[in-house]
């Protein structure tokens, strides 16, 4: 998979997170994974079609998801991962992917995105549509967020 497909997602993260109230955003790691991921926490998947086709899977552990939702809601305490928190995190996936789509269009690649589907659970195995998945690990105010990208 071409590395130029990664930058729009990193740029989106670096530009969206500060707008949501996060002060420190950074990329910590980039790795190539095989097709099976297992996660305990919150997972969001967003479909992409257009000149390139695939999926993005975002992951945060449950506590991180609550912290991010709280920051997005101006510091309102989030004790439970309830509908309000789910809606905020879902919107985060939507904003990040929509912004990435804009960065893609800036480099001449037109893509459209689907609505996000949010799931949570323990030991959830995730199979994406490609055997090679690029995983970007990022931090927003020290909260880790994984972005997995698979283009077929």
């Amino acid at each position, binding site marked *: 998979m071409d590395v130029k497909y990664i930058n729009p997602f990193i740029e989106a993260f670096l530009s969206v997170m500060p707008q949501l109230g996060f002060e420190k955003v950074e990329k910590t790691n980039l790795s190539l994974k095989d097709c099976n991921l297992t996660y305990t926490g919150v*997972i969001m*998947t*967003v*479909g*992409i*079609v257009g000149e390139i*086709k*695939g*999926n993005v*899977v975002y992951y945060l552990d449950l506590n991180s998801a609550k912290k991010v939702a709280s920051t997005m809601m101006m510091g309102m305490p989030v004790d439970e991962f309830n*509908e309000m928190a*789910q*809606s905020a995190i*879902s919107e985060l996936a939507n904003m990040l992917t929509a912004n990435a789509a804009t960065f893609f269009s800036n480099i001449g690649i037109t893509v*459209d*995105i*689907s*609505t*996000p*589907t*949010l*799931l*949570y*659970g*323990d*030991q*959830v*195995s*995730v*199979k*994406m*549509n490609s055997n090679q998945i690029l995983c970007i690990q990022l931090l927003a105010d020290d909260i880790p967020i994984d972005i997995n990208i*698979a283009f*077929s």
Partner: protein
Amino acid sequence: MAGTKVVIVDDSPFSIAFIKGILVRNGLEVVGEAGTLEEVKQVIKETKPQLVTMDMTLPGTDGLECTRAIHEIDRNIKVIVISSMMDDEIVKEAKENKVSAYVQKPIDEEELMTAVNRVMSSEELFRFLSSEYIKIFKEALLDGTNKLTKSLIQYKDEHICSQEFQSEGLAVIVGIIGKFSGRMLIDVKMETAYKLTASIMKREASGIDEVLAVLGEFTNIVSGNACSIINRMNKAYGLRVAPPTIMHGESIHITAPAYTTTNILADSDFGEILLNIGFQRGDDQWM
């Protein structure tokens, strides 16, 4: 578009008469007028329009406050701003307040009617999709199962899904993109997935990887077929499906998105199959 009920919000009698003239000539029905926030609330409640034309500068209020008040009464009412002021900042604010289109004064009849047609045709397309998609996806699942396994499925329950639900073990998610975006999801027990795979492959499944691959392709076929049928009904839908993402595990909660989805439950020779589908109204009609 003919017969669409419209309310005109403006504080200038000249503008009201002018806009009314255009709308009536084009077959729309002007059911009310308002010039203040209070009048807006009252007229909207009484006349229940599908469309509102909105001036930006109004005594004691502004077009955006009135738009919010309208959407508090009924968020499905479309608002087109008609204002002499138009700059990036105000257009951005209008978008944020769920305005569907922005037309600058002095009003050009053709420009206004193009905006009205776009906004209202989007509404009609969504209404049609909402009334048809369940039937079409059910047919596609029935047909896909039948062609691949030579067996039939029986639908036994169908309800609006507004809460999260727990996966039976394996969930295949397909994002749908087009005029309206959404998702389709198939959820089954792992045991069902194995049986379905064996039936399709006409032999025992070789392992979990094969089961995931078969279920992924099965879901892809069902969603692709259903979206093709919808596109053939009206190519304006332009629906496309993203590749499937497959999740499996013993404790997976699938949350309800911000839009309505429908859960449809079917009995098959392999066990229950849950189909979940929904489309977002979307506001891609900005112009």
